[in-house]
Each structure stands twice: as C-alpha cells, then as structure tokens.
C-alpha cells in the first residue's frame, strides 16, 4: 500500500524556492483551494474550472460522464482496478505525487483506474489506444492511467480525448531500463470541455521516451508533464503542438527534474493562436541537480500569432546546480506570420489563403514528422486542415 500523503514540510502559503521543493500530496485537503495568485495557477482562468475547485474535496464523486476504452495488442496486460482513496491498488501513485490540488483531487476521487503493462522485452507493432470519451460537461469526472513499459520493451501509446467533459486526471508513466515509449496525448475535445491533466513520467536507465501533447479543442486545457529519471542515460523528448482558437485556453507546464548523470531532455513546443481571447501558456522548468553531471538539455517554445487578439505566455526556466553539464539552453520565440514568406509564395501565383495554409502547416511540419505515429499524424493533419480553414475563412 502506498502512503497516502507525503509532504515536504513546506507550508503551502510560502512560495517554494524552486520546483523541487513544492508541497506534494495525494490528499486534496493538504492544498488550499487555489485562487489564481499562486505561481502554479497564475495563468489559469480559475473562474472556468467549474466543479474541479470544489471546497469540500471529501464529498466529491466523479459524475461518470467520461468513459475510457482501451484498444491494445494482445501482448499488453490491461487491468481496470478499483480506486477509491485509501482502497487503491498499491501500484498507483508510485511514479509521481501530485503537486497541486486538482491533481490530488483527481487521485482521491477516481473510481476506477486503468493499468496498462507492456511486459519485459515485448516489442509492440501496433499502438495502444486509450480513448476518453466525454458525454457531457455538467458534473466533474476523474481518471487515472498507469502505463508501465517494462525493461527492454517498446510501445506506442495514444491517449485520445474527445467529446464534452469537465475532467481531471493523472497519468503515470514508468519506462523500465532500456525501454522505448512514444506516448501522445491528443486533446481533441469539444469546445466546452475543461481538462486538467497531470502527467508523471519516470524514465529508466538508458530508456528513451517521446512524449507528445497535441492541444486542439476544449475551453480550458491544461497539461502538466513532470519528468524524473530512475537511472543514468535516460533520454526524453517532450514535444507539443497546439492550435488555440478564440476564447480558448491551452496551458502546458513542463518540469524536467534531472537527478541522474548523463541524461538528455529536449523540449520543443509549437503553437499557433488566432483571435480574441485565444490564450496559450508554456512554462518550461528544467532543474539540473548536483548529481546530474553530463546532462544535455534544450527547450524551446515557438508561437505563431495568426491575427490580432491572442496572448501567448512563454516562460522558460533553467536551474543548474552542477558545474558539469554537457549542454543546457532554452529559447522562446513569439511572432506573427512572416510577410516575406507570404509574399514569396504569392509571387508564384499561390492565393493568399493557400499561402497562409502552407506557411502554418510548414511551421508544424518539423514536429508532426517527428511524432512518427501514422494514426496521430493523420488525425493531426486533418485537424490542422479544419483549424486552418476555420482560421482563414473568418
């Protein structure tokens, strides 16, 4: 049985000196209800979080509005385990501990968790698809997925999110030594969906992980990937694509905690924003601890503003506690569509709308091609096409 609460002893109203010292707990009551001034929540539209901010966390029960379906090759062990507060499966909560109230609430209020295990040395040839389907945004619902890719195994996992929901969940990912995982969270919700998702990722010794977030739909979508390393030589690539429409909030908060030697992390998020009230947030926190010698890390966020009105907040943050890093860097670029690129294409007879479409598609192409999962690439291409048509016809 995993411990239900694990606190660092820091009072929640005192700002933590860095990301690693924050209060962590599975019990929502350990966190005060946030008001939006906390560092963690300062960019999030708190008034739109509905029942996810309920005062009395102990009374919260999931509405059952989100159904989760798993399609997996037969090599994969798929379990649906009962999960209620102290009665949960001991494997749950072992990868990462929530650092904020909503993720803790999701942990305590989830009724059934999904555990997926790719056994040691198993090479999957087909992707695992976990499809969360929301049947309405009226009551809040909660979820939990534990994904274990054992040593020497390799897998591709797509977490597909569609429909309408008010949803908070935890995703725990453990990749064993020399394991390979590509995991894609495709957030293709209806326009009224609110989804707060805490990802906890543990990268094993010499393991390689590609983690992708694709934020397309929803009203408020917030994904917080946190990465730890369980041994030296781990490699994680954190990729993100988002297309943020008017009055849409897409937030990505990344924390990579380098504690092991000779690991590599590469963060690359790209977003296009259009219209009044479109708001994207990208926070890239990378911590290199004293023991993490030989670390190689780079993070970049690029945002493309397709009209007047959108706002893109982009905050890279690198903390280095060792003098022995291989390389470390970050960058953030937010700009408008390049007029010279449009001129060049149009001077070859290409109409303006088509030229804009080419430039924006090209902007995302580098990341799209790196995902390398046909199922996702096709969905992404189709979704971008729809977004661009909407964006250029308005």
């Amino acid at each position: 049985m995993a411990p239900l609460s694990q606190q660092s002893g820091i009072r929640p109203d005192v700002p933590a000196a860095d990301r690693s010292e924050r209060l962590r707990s599975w019990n929502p009551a350990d966190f005060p209800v946030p008001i939006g001034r906390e560092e963690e929540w300062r960019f999030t539209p708190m008034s739109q979080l509905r029942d996810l901010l309920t005062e009395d966390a102990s009374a919260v029960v999931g509405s059952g509005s989100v159904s989760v379906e798993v399609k997996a090759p037969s090599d994969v062990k798929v379990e649906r385990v009962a999960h209620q507060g102290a009665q949960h499966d001991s494997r749950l909560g072992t990868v990462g501990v929530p650092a904020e109230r909503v993720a803790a609430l999701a942990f305590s209020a989830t009724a059934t968790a999904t555990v997926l295990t790719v056994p040691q040395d198993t090479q999957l040839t087909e992707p695992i698809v976990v499809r969360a389907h929301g049947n309405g945004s009226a009551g809040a619902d909660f979820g939990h997925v534990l994904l274990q890719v054992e040593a020497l195994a390799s897998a591709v996992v797509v977490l597909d999110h569609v429909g309408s929901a008010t949803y908070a969940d935890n995703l725990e990912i453990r990749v064993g030594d020399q394991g390979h995982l590509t995991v894609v969270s495709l957030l293709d919700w209806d326009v009224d969906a609110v989804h707060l998702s805490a990802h906890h990722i543990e990268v094993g010794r010499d393991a390689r992980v590609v983690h992708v977030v694709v934020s397309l739909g929803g009203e408020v979508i917030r994904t917080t990937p946190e990465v730890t390393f369980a041994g030296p030589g781990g490699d994680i690539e954190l990729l993100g694509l988002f297309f943020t429409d008017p009055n849409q909030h897409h937030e990505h908060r990344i924390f990579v905690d380098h504690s092991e030697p000779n690991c590599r992390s590469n963060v690359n998020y790209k977003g296009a924003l259009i219209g009044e009230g479109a708001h994207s947030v990208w926070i890239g926190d990378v911590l290199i601890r004293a023991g993490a010698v030989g670390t190689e890390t780079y993070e970049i966020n690029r945002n493309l503003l397709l009209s007047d009105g959108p706002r893109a907040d982009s905050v890279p943050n690198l903390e280095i506690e060792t003098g022995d890093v291989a390389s470390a860097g970050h960058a953030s670029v937010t700009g408008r569509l390049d007029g010279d690129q449009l001129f060049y294409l149009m001077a070859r007879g290409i109409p303006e709308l088509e030229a804009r479409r080419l430039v924006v598609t090209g902007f995302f192409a580098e990341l799209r091609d790196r995902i390398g999962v046909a199922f996702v690439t096709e969905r992404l291409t189709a979704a971008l096409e729809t977004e661009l048509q909407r964006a250029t016809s308005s």
Partner: protein
Amino acid sequence: MSVLTIKDLHVSVQTDDGARPILRGVDLTIASGQTHALMGPNGSGKSTLAYAIAGHPRYEVTSGSIVLDGDDILDMSIDERARAGLFLAMQYPVEVPGVSVTNFLRTAATAVRGEAPKVRLWVKEVRETMDRLSMDPAFAERNVNEGFSGGEKKRSELLQLELLRPKIAVLDEIDSGLDVDALKVVSEGINRVRESGDTGVMLITHYTRILRYVKPDQVHVFSGGRIVERGGAELAETLESQGYERYAGLDLASAGSN
C-alpha cells in the same frame, strides 16, 4: 505576343520615417521574346522597380501605370499578377520552413496553370528541368530555400522560372553571388526560356559579366530612380570600361529636383 508597358512610374518605399520616393518616372516596354538589361549602381532603384511590378506591399505606386496586354497590373493582388504571367526571380529568395520544394512547385504550377499538372508528366518535367540546371534530385525534398547556398537559391529561382513559363520574367540580380560555373548554368537556363520566344526577360544587374552569356536586345541605364540612357548590347560594353561614374551627375540632378 505579350507586352508589358510601364509608363511614368513613381514609387515610394515605406520606411520607419515614412514614405520615401525612389522611382521618379520610369518608362519601359518589354515584349515576349525580348531581353532587356536594366543596369545601374546600387541604390538606383532597380530592385524597387522589380518589387513594384510584383506588388510587394512595402512599395507604393504613387503615379504612373503598369499594364500587361491591356490589363492594369496595379489593380491586381500579388498572386493575381503572377497568374497573369509575371514572374520575379528574387535577389534574396525567402526560406519557407516545413514546405518542401516539391510541394511548393506543384502548388505554384497548379495556381499558375489553373489546374493541377498530371502527376506522371509533372514528375518527369521537374526532374528533367532540374537535371538541365545540374540540380541533385534530393534537392526537391528539401524545404524551400532553407539552408540553400547562394548558388542553390538562384538555381531554384531558375527552376521555378522554367516550370512556370511566365509572359514576362523580372530577374533581380540573378547573377549576384554566383561563381563562373553556376553563372553559366543559370545563363543557359535564361537562354532556354528566351529561345521559347514566349517570355520577355528583364535582367536586372549591377555587373556586365552575365551579359557575356545572355545577350540583351536593349540595355537601359538606371540612375536616381529613372532610366538615364538606353542603347543596344554595345552600351553594356561601354559601361564595363567606363563604369557608372558619368551618370553620377545625373543622379545628383534628379535628386536635387525632388
């Protein structure tokens, strides 16, 4: 036969300090099959003329006209001008990340020709044209102008010129930054386009070197935003030996009158 007629063209460029007049009354007529060399010192307004013809938004036509076969070009958007048969090979072609040369060429050809070219014929046409320009086939898979060398950019402009077959092609310093071998390849490309007889070429250049390979029908000397002298191919030879110095006075005179 097509004719591009430029009459008394005045153009200002948008700068941070407001509009600055550059062209001060340009008259020029080019018919398909002809080659006109437009020569002049840096800053004389040659590139401004090229951009004004193509319709770059930074350049404002304050008076005068540009007409292609009776149609007023100035009423057209950038892409409409290209579809009407104008082509500008740029001095500094723009990088377009994530858009492959193949995709770009096919999209442009579809727009200019009014229908998508038949796949098999198109692939052959592109491959043969690239071959004539001594371009590696792998080039087609790269992103437009991204990481291209100076020579590769110019060949890529020539490739587009040959595939889009415009009525009038404006080549803005297509010879700049090329070594002799690349200059020959590019010149041969221009000559192929000329020999078709369907395209009129306006060759904008600072140097006379390219005119050894591409013989112009007419040479126009540009200075102070106007054409100050016209002549045949022999004028280029005079310029080669005497330079632009003797036009400097005219430069001052026209600048002073404004």
